[in-house]
């Protein structure tokens, strides 16, 4: 096809002005702190605690959503459970529902004002405005990733491989662990990486459900907001750049894994 020069310039200007320029401004703002300033901003106790909280809650969300996501994909693709279409639509819900609203939903059920929240509170368990709430919100917003990564690979697995294993004398557990699961591992890994990357970037739901208590439930993105509001854009930019670096490292990893899984999507 013939190149069409004005179109090129229009698109490059649009993408450049919209994405590249603002991010460059942030990197420049972080860089303006100097190396010492950057290290100080990222290693400030509150920043470290926020980054650490984001990291481990993200890990827990990944560890839970990888097996559950795989099980859901299994129910949809292999077992064709009654209502699998509804199940599939439910899995897509977090893609279309605002993440802030996910936070509100969780507060509506688990918050101290709700009947269940009251019961839990009386039992000494705090969910909303506490760490369990953070994990629940991350689980809800990252639900689609593993399911959507595993589904196409599972659909392409030849049922004859399973039958071959059975005719060779494998017990059901052996069939599962030795024949069915290994081809799914790269896809599960790709989905898991996406879950973690999204978890450390998540803001909307956590700003509602976490309670934002410094040193308790303040995750990194909410910490960034606090720094902005406190008039410290340099510190905010420094922590942001760390988050961006994490996610830019994970993105190619997830791509490589999903290519290894044989599914041609990102």
């Amino acid at each position, binding site marked *: 096809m013939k190149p069409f020069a004005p179109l090129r310039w229009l698109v490059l200007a649009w*993408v450049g002005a*919209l994405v590249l320029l603002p991010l460059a401004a942030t990197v420049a703002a972080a860089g303006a702190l100097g190396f010492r300033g950057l290290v100080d901003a990222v290693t400030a106790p509150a920043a470290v605690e926020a980054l650490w909280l984001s990291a481990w809650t993200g890990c827990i969300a990944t560890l839970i959503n990888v097996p559950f996501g795989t099980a859901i994909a299994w129910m949809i693709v292999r*077992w064709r459970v009654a209502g699998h279409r509804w199940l599939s639509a439910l899995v897509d819900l977090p893609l279309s529902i605002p993440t802030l609203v996910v936070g509100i939903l969780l507060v509506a059920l688990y918050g101290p004002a709700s009947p269940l929240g009251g019961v839990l509170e009386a039992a000494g368990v705090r969910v909303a405005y506490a760490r369990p709430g953070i994990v629940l919100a991350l689980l809800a917003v990252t639900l689609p990733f593993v399911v959507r990564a595993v589904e196409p690979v599972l659909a392409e697995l030849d049922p004859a491989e399973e039958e071959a294993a059975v005719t060779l004398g494998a017990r059901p557990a052996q069939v599962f662990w030795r024949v069915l699961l290994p081809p799914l591992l790269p896809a599960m890994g790709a989905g898991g990486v996406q879950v973690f990357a999204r978890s450390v970037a998540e803001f909307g739901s956590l700003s509602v459900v976490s309670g934002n208590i410094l040193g308790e439930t303040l995750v990194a993105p909410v910490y960034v907001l606090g720094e902005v509001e406190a008039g410290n854009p340099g510190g905010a930019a420094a922590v942001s750049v760390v988050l961006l670096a994490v996610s830019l490292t994970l993105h190619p990893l997830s791509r490589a894994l999903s290519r290894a899984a044989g599914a041609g999507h990102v």
Partner: protein
Amino acid sequence: MSDRWVRRWVIGLVLAYLGAILVVPLFSLLSVVVGAPDRAIDGLLRPEAIDALTRTLTVTAVVVVGNVTMGVAAAWLVVRDPMRGRAALDALLDLPLAVSPVMTGLSLLLLFGRNGWLASPLSSMGVVVPFQWPAILLATLFVTLPFTAREVILVLRELGTSQEEAAATLGATGWQTFWRVTLPNLRSAVALGATLTAARALGEFGAVLVVGGAIRGRTQTATTFIHTAMEERQEEAAYAMSLVLAFLAILLLAALTALGRPRRSP
């Protein structure tokens, strides 16, 4: 058979899980709003609520038109244009997915705010971005840039060039080929991209909060309205607006399901 028991346990566990993170919270929100309908309606009929929702819908409409057009153009450049650096453009289109929404807001603030690179040239023209309506528009454009482009890139790659070449041998000009041959093949990818764009635009929160400031009557959107209402302990208004957004999300989800699921492997 033990197989059946395994299946029952897995299904039971998964349903309990989905109930805990999504379904029951959704119904508890519904029951709170339905339980006190007059207060919810009062909250929604407040002028600032109507104003915020109108602003969100307007921005969504503009963003869908803007980013669907530019998304198709950018995708075409990435897949078909022989220009150098199209791999970089491809990566750039994915970048907003890796950025935490708070960082998006911060980046725009740093670019357009006091001392920002673009602040003085724009203010000499009388344009102010931070905490004004352009801030919301830019933030929403930033976060929704990838959706249409990604869907269209997938389809264009799969489509190949043979149909376009056939049209060229039959004497069609570049534009005729694009309008009559290429675009009709992209219809469902464009629709899917538009749906995802709209869903994200309706629900964007972090970026518009940081760079827009949630100023009543000026930059308040549906999501920041919910946030403000929660902070002012007006849960009914927050819940009612959340339910409105959840309802819109479910409508979009229905469209999404009808269009075929997003990012299926080819």
